[in-house]
């Protein structure tokens, strides 16, 4: 896969939407397990900045620490060390203010399965201070744009396909008009068509609504297609960062897959198949 050069990279202002400095997170085994388990260093001194209006893609194999980083940035985990700021706000000290600026889509579309897309999204809107009067027309508009028919919006979500559920998850994040959107493998498990629709929507979201997007993926094509800059995460460390062409130039040219192999010693597919969290 050749690296595509994306036009119109919007990093002129250089306002940091997200700034992480030397962030570390380790998970220790439960003490009750007799002699069992070793400490897993999931994130090991990661520093990165995502500029306002940028799509930044974290590329890494399973177990490389991508999801842990996203959970740290979305206030679901507290770092053992380091500082994370969202638009200058400390995620620990200014937690509530940070929560108003962010939203997240995870690999699993997590909803109240018996409730419809409309009920779930109206509820989600309320949590972000959006009244049902305001949210309902907006929900219909977003879901239509994502290709979900009106009749499906009032069906229990458990009756919708995985792809549709993931689109509803993206609509939920979009509903709160986040300044920083954290997408944790949002297209994993989707068919090609749904994947493309989601990718188009993500790009439109950035272009039309001034959103900053941090995306994790282990899909090289997705990274090249969407990202303004790419960070490669390996064993909890950010081993390289730059535009696709910068990475290629620095690490021997060729494809993004070649770059990944040069930096990690493995093909991404092989790493996914055999990787696990690393014990220290």
């Amino acid at each position, binding site marked *: 896969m050749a690296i595509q050069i994306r036009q119109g990279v919007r990093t002129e202002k250089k306002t940091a939407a997200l700034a992480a400095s030397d962030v570390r997170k380790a*998970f*220790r085994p439960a003490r009750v397990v007799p002699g069992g388990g070793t400490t897993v260093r999931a994130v090991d001194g990661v520093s990165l900045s995502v500029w306002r209006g940028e799509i930044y893609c974290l590329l890494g194999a399973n177990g490389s620490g991508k999801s842990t980083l996203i*959970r740290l940035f*979305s*206030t*679901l*985990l*507290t770092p053992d060390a380091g500082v994370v700021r969202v638009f200058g706000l400390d995620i620990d000290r200014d937690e*509530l*203010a940070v*929560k*108003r600026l*962010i*939203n*997240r889509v*995870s690999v*699993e579309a*997590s*909803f*109240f*399965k*018996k*409730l419809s897309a409309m*009920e779930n999204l*109206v*509820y*989600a809107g*309320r*949590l*972000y*201070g959006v*009244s049902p009067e305001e949210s309902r027309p907006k929900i219909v508009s977003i879901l239509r744009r994502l290709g979900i028919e009106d009749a499906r919006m009032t069906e*229990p979500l458990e009756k919708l396909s995985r792809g549709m559920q993931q689109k509803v998850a993206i609509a*939920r994040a979009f509903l709160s008009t986040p300044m920083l959107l954290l997408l944790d493998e949002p297209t994993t498990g989707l068919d090609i068509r749904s994947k493309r629709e989601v990718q188009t929507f993500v790009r439109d979201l950035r272009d039309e609504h001034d959103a900053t997007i941090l995306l994790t993926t282990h899909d090289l094509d997705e990274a090249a297609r969407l990202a303004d800059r790419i960070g490669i995460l390996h064993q909890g460390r950010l081993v390289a960062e730059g535009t696709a062409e910068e990475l290629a130039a620095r690490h021997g040219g060729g494809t993004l897959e070649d770059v990944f192999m040069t930096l990690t010693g493995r093909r991404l597919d092989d790493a996914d198949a055999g990787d696990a969290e690393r014990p220290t």
Partner: protein
Amino acid sequence: MIADVGAQLGLAYAFVEREIALSKRYWAWEIVWLVYGVVTSLSVAYIALGAPGLTGGSGDPALVSRFVLYLLVGTITWRFLGLIFEQMGETIAWERWEGTIEYTFMAPVPRLTHLLGMCAATLVRALGFSVAILAAVALFVPVDLSHANIASALVLLATGAVAFIGLAIGSAVFPLLWTEKGLQMAYIVQAVVLLVSGVYYETTILPGWMQVLSFISPATYVIRGMRDALLDGADLAAVWPNLWPALLVGAISIPLGLRLFLWAERYAKRTGRLKRSG
């Protein structure tokens, strides 16, 4: 300030609306719980009706009627308090199971507002269930409320709800800390409270160590006061000796439960336990 309070109430209402929508979707289960509540309460009432025959005691209809009401007050009050305990305890476990826990905790909603919303939803459900059970039971067995002081009973019920909310918030900490076994722990706490609170008997018959537990259970005072109000028509002054301990437990347990919950949330974030299961 008023706008902020209004905004927080709006946020809290999101949880009430969600719970109502979930009840509608899970209507078959709601009917199951209602039938279960009616059947359990009726069974207890029939024990009272059949007691003279079993024990060879007095078959005086007035005494039997009093015994029926004695047991019904215990079982229906416990149903009310127990539902508060269960539903608040399941606040975390349910969301973990649905997979929505991360989204709820990521939302810009102060935890106090979140729990306030859940408490309001819980109270609506518990009150609805209790009234429905009492009405259904009254169709089958004679319920003599001619001497009852309803105002005192309602005040006691409201006080008991407040006191139980604190305990329930505290018990919701278990599923937050122990992702797999936390809910079971909360149920054990609830079972112990049932045993020591004099739901079906006077706490004086319990062994000494259990009486110590009954002393700190708010249900003990609420159920005792409810009996005084509904069986003997005790007014507020007469139920005060049972009212103030329940108020005291509420005044202590709500801030304590909330503080415990916030501590547990921070611990869960530190150890990676704030996540879905299954």
